[in-house]
Structures are given as structure tokens and as C-alpha cells.
């Protein structure tokens, strides 16, 4: 064989590449094979539905190529990642385009080879095999330097992450550290090999690539090939059913362990808890450390902030829930006592359809001032209303779901559904975002409009049914996790507050708001740990020195009230106080 067309030093790269490709194909088949049948159908259908297909194309380019989400989160990290990933991609693409313009080295022509034949290792080692064409060569060098600039930032981040605006980074094991080192050295070696053309460096460069490829499936860099599959599955609207199978498996492999969730997690306020963040959960689950994964899943508050900041949009909260369902507590609930229970009496309401059904929920029962305020508001607006749980009532079922017990939760949900349907009302107003989430997601209440009281009050104000006066108090609004991040109800409460007073901004708002620390999602956090989270969250809200903290969740209200230096009120209370 002609030495200018083949040289043994390309072998490590070729073998590594073949390994990665085989692994990816097998993995792809495995993930798709593990999907439940209806999910698989949904997936195939989503690929040809124009709307999801367009979303797929948009995100494949936006997320996999240009890393838009990292840019939004932190421009320095955005550049770092784009420089390395996009730069590498461009080198490969340009290399392949260039194949058609390359001229063989002198000497080969004499042997009858007129043009370089396309060959997949040429773009990687092109300078060894061919004379370059000027324009492409400049482009190639440009992108290679861009990658190296990205690596320099990565090295700085490794030495002192605070320079690039990251407080805590993920702690890696041996394999992850080694592959990172392999990745960092690939490009400098390529540069040296190309510029000096010393045989030893070509060998090192090829072996380095080989090491990277062989370690890739077992380390965080598996996110490079998997993310594309994950985007397609995500847009198909799937939910993880089992923690380590199918869709969840694709997510586990797509997690790059970047650690952006570590700084974001409210629990990280105490350093000893930063190991309970999603990055570590995904790692533990992926490595099969079931006990640790279970412990983290149960410690998590399910506030959803890690999902909001994730540059890959990994739904770690859903995976944690499926982990909880996989290993449920051995509490065998028996709620048969609910069978004969009826509490609403709408028999004397003439027009049942116009009647607003109000469900306070357990937490609001503990904060009766919210109930009183809602009563005042509904009366002032001249609404016909009925309480679903005037004295007592049944839990909405979300806490039971959070403990991984779906069947038991469904027993309670069925009872509540029966009561709501029996009332004949078409509008259900809730004061507790915890209830709101489960009513929206799990209940089947066709023909009943489900509203949180922030939305309801906002609508009443807009319809002119409610008249309020404006005072001079400066409010700051805390977004409850289950209302804000889960359903994007950010504007309604703020608009209501603008009507009754002045709104000041918190340091972290909307999808970045910090959980109050009272969350029902966590089973393991002690009161002391919760208090630390609350203090941090209050400090964040007090950033612009507001006179009062306003929230829309009875649990947040109770949690903040213990630690806040100023008064904490529910939105309904504030509005009720300003009624005219």
C-alpha cells in the first residue's frame, strides 16, 4: 500500500471511531427498544409531525451546535463550550468538504493517483497526506485556534472556577478526569503535529483520539452523541417511567455533569448538601449506585430549579420521581374510610354552573387568613362560591405522589374528582400551588377550569368585578416553585401587585427564584437544613429592601414568616386589605 494514502498511525483513531459508532448504534437500539409501546409510537409520530419536527431541527442546531442555553446562562462558559464543540464540528465538516479539493502530495501523481479519494480519516490527519488548499487551510487553522482558546478557558475554570462565574464545580472520578485531560491535549497535539510534521506527534495525536473515543461511552462525554437523541425524545412529549430505562436512560447519558445545577440548587447553600444536587444524582444513578441515588431522590425538594437552569433541559425532577416510584416506602395506605365522605352542599345553589368552587387544601387550612381573604374577595366581586373543604377535606394527593405511591394517591384523587364533579361547578379555584400542580397534571376534570387564586384575582380585576386602591407599600413577590417554574404563572401575581402597591424586584426572580425551603418534596432534610435554605431565600428577596414579602403559597408563607425581617403576606391577603 502506498505510504501516502495509508500509514499505520491512523489505526488507533480508526479503531476508536469504530468502537464509538458501534456503541452508539447499540445504545440507540437499546433506548428505543426499552420504550413502552405507546411511547415508541408517540416518538415515531413526533418525527413526522411538522410542529415537533421543526422543534427538533431548531433545538438540534440551537442546543447541539450553538449551545444557546449555555450562552444565555453564562456567556464565558458559552464561549468555552462553543469554541471547543462547535470548533471541533467545523474542523470535521470543513475537513470533509476540503477532501474534494485536496491535491495529493508530490510523488503520488506519478503513480497514477490524480485526486484524493474521500476517506474518513483524511480530514483528521489531512496535512500528513496531502497538500492543502489555501482558503480551507486558513479556516482549519482558525477553528483549531478557537478550540485551543476554549481549552484555555476550561483550564482556568479547572484551576479557579470563580473567575468564570462558577462557585462550585462537579467533583469527578478518575475516568472523567482522565478523559478530560485526553480531550484537552488532542488539539495542541494536532497543532504541533501539523506544524512540525514529526512522526511521533502524529502517533500521539492518533492515540490520544483513541483514548478519548474508548472512554467516551463510560464518561460524561457520552452527552455529545446522546443529546441529539434526547432532544428528539423530549419533543415527543415522553415521561420517564423507570429510572434507568428508555427515555430516562437517554437522559442519564445526556447529562454532561457540567454542574450548573450545583450552584442553582437551593440546598447548596450548605456546602455539605451540594452533593445532593442533580448532577450527582444523575451520575450515581448512571453508575448503578442505587442506594445513593434513592437517598438523593428523597432529599430533593422538587423545586425544579435544576431543570430550569440545565443547558441540556434534563428533567432530573421527573427521573427522581420515577426513582421514588421504583423503590416506594412500605406504607400500605388504606383510604377506604373516604368512601362515604361528602362535604360540599350545593343543593341550594340555583345555578350550579356559575358557581365557583373553592378548594383551600391542607396547607391553606393551616393559614386560615388566606381563606378569609379569599372569602372577602369573592364576596366583594359578587361571585357565587362554594367551599369544597370547609372543615377538613381530603388531601389533593400530591404529597402521596411525592412519596412514590401512585395507586394510593389515585384513591384520594378519585374521591376529590367525584366531589368536584358532583358539585357541577365549572370553575375550581385553588389557593395552594401544591394542589394546583396535581390538579392540573393528574386530575381528569374535563369541563372544569382550574385556576390558582392569583390567576383568578387577576381575572376579576381585569373584568372590573373587583375594585382596589393603591397604597405606598413596596412589595417583593416570591414565585412559589409549583406555580412559577411548573406552570409559568409569573405575570398575573405581579400585575395584581402593581394594582395595589409598588413592586420591587428580588435578586433572583421567576424561573430562578429560590425555594422557600419548606417544600413537601423533600423527606430527608432536617429543620436546621431547611432553615438555612429559608434564610438564603429571604436574603435574596430582601435584596431591594421591600416593605413586605408577598407570596402565593401557604407553605411558603408559613416558612418565610419564621425567618423574615418584614411582614410576609399572601397575595389574597394584600388584595383583600385594599378592597374598595
Amino acid at each position, binding site marked *: 500500500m502506498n505510504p501516502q494514502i495509508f500509514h499505520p498511525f491512523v489505526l488507533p483513531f480508526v479503531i476508536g471511531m469504530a468502537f464509538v459508532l458501534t456503541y452508539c448504534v447499540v445504545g440507540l437500539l437499546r433506548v428505543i427498544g426499552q420504550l413502552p409501546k405507546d411511547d415508541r409510537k408517540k416518538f415515531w409520530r413526533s418525527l413526522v409531525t411538522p410542529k415537533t419536527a421543526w422543534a427538533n431541527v431548531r433545538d438540534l442546531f440551537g442546543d447541539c451546535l450553538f449551545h444557546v442555553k449555555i450562552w444565555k446562562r453564562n456567556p464565558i462558559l458559552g464561549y468555552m463550550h462553543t469554541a471547543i464543540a462547535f470548533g471541533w464540528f467545523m474542523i470535521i465538516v470543513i475537513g470533509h468538504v476540503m477532501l474534494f479539493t485536496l491535491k495529493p502530495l508530490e510523488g503520488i501523481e506519478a503513480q497514477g493517483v490524480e485526486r484524493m479519494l474521500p476517506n474518513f480519516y483524511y480530514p483528521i490527519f489531512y496535512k500528513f497526506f496531502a497538500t492543502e488548499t489555501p482558503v480551507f487551510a486558513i479556516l482549519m487553522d482558525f477553528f483549531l485556534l478557537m478550540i485551543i482558546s476554549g481549552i484555555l478557558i476550561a483550564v482556568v475554570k479547572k484551576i479557579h472556577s470563580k473567575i468564570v462565574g462558577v462557585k462550585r464545580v462537579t467533583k469527578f472520578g478518575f475516568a472523567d478526569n482522565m478523559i478530560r485531560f485526553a480531550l484537552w491535549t488532542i488539539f495542541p497535539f494536532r497543532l504541533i503535529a501539523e506544524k512540525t510534521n514529526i512522526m511521533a506527534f502524529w502517533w500521539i495525536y492518533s492515540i490520544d483520539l483513541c483514548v478519548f473515543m474508548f472512554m467516551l461511552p463510560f464518561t460524561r462525554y457520552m452527552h455529545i452523541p446522546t443529546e441529539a437523541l434526547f432532544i428528539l425524545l423530549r419533543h415527543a412529549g415522553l415521561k420517564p417511567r423507570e429510572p434507568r430505562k428508555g427515555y430516562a436512560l437517554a437522559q442519564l447519558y445526556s447529562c454532561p455533569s457540567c454542574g450548573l445545577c450545583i450552584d442553582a440548587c437551593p440546598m447548596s447553600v450548605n456546602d455539605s448538601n451540594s452533593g445532593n444536587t442533580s448532577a450527582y444524582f444523575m451520575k450515581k444513578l448512571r453508575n448503578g449506585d442505587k442506594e445513593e441515588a434513592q437517598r438523593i431522590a428523597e432529599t430533593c425538594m422538587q423545586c425544579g430549579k435544576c431543570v430550569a437552569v440545565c443547558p441540556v433541559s434534563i428533567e432530573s425532577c421527573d427521573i427522581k420521581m420515577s426513582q421514588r416510584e421504583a423503590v416506594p416506602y412500605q406504607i400500605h395506605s388504606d383510604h377506604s374510610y373516604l368512601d362515604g365522605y361528602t362535604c360540599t352542599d350545593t343543593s341550594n345553589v340555583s345555578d350550579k354552573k356559575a358557581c365557583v368552587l373553592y378548594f383551600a387544601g391542607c396547607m391553606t387550612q393551616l393559614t386560615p387568613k388566606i381563606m378569609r381573604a379569599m372569602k372577602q374577595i369573592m364576596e366583594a366581586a359578587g361571585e357565587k362560591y362554594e367551599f369544597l373543604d370547609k*372543615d377538613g377535606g*381530603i388531601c389533593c394527593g400530591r404529597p402521596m405522589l411525592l412519596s412514590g405511591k401512585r395507586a394510593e394517591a389515585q384513591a384520594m384523587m378519585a374521591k376529590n374528582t367525584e366531589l368536584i364533579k358532583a358539585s357541577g361547578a365549572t370553575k375550581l379555584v385553588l389557593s395552594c400551588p401544591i394542589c394546583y400542580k396535581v390538579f392540573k397534571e393528574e386530575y381528569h376534570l374535563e369541563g372544569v377550569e382550574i385556576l390558582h387564586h392569583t390567576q383568578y384575582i387577576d381575572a376579576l380585576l381585569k373584568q372590573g368585578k373587583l375594585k382596589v386602591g393603591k397604597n405606598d407599600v413596596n412589595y417583593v413577590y416570591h414565585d412559589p416553585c409549583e406555580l412559577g417554574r411548573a406552570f409559568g404563572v409569573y405575570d398575573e401575581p405581579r400585575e395584581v401587585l402593581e394594582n395595589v402597591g409598588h413592586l420591587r424586584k428580588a435578586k433572583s426572580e421567576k424561573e430562578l427564584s429560590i425555594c422557600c425551603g419548606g417544600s413537601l418534596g423533600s*423527606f430527608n432534610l432536617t429543620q436546621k437544613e431547611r432553615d438555612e435554605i429559608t434564610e438564603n431565600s429571604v436574603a435574596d428577596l430582601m435584596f431591594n429592601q421591600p416593605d413586605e414579602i408577598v407570596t402565593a403559597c401557604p407553605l411558603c408563607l408559613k416558612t418565610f414568616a419564621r425567618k423574615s425581617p418584614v411582614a410576609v403576606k399572601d397575595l389574597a391577603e394584600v388584595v383583600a386589605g385594599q378592597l374598595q
Partner: protein
Amino acid sequence: MDFGFCLSPSSHVKMDSVDLTTFNRLKETNPDINTCIACGSCTATCTAGHFTEMSFRRILLMLQRGKEDEAKKMIQRCMLCGKCTLVCPRGINIRKILLDITR
């Protein structure tokens, strides 16, 4: 005085012979249990207690007396809503303890 018969079954608990393994295990994993003052706030707010005899305060008492089966039976009523945890003046993670009893 023992006549050899009585109207109601004896509720006498022999503390020397009761089996406290569950309670002791619980105390190890949830040391905050020791701070309980048996105020009964948990029972007063209990959602399930509205319909049944469910009472966390009594569950704890049962465990202290080795009546594990009775305690576990009562836990079946629980809705895990977490109101008890929220109102506890000692900040005891009651929901976690309830779940741990059944572990």
C-alpha cells in the same frame, strides 16, 4: 387485685419485656424524635385524623410501648400531606418518621 377475670382486656404493658427494636432504630435514624413534647399539634391538624382515629402522638406512644402492629395499622390512614411536620413546634420531621416506621 386479680380475680382471674375482668370486664375489659388488660392494657397493662410490661416494660421489661416489650420489644423496642423499632423505636430504638427510629431514634437512631431520626434523633429529633427525642425532642417530642407530646403537645399533640400533629394530631390536631391531621387531615386523616378528621375522618379516623389517626394520631401521630399516639403512634409514638404505641412504639414506646412496643405496640408496633397497632402503630403500623394506624399509619395506613395517613395521607402524607405533611401538615403535622409543618405545625410541629419542635421541627420534627414527622412525615419522614412515619415513612421510616414502615421501612
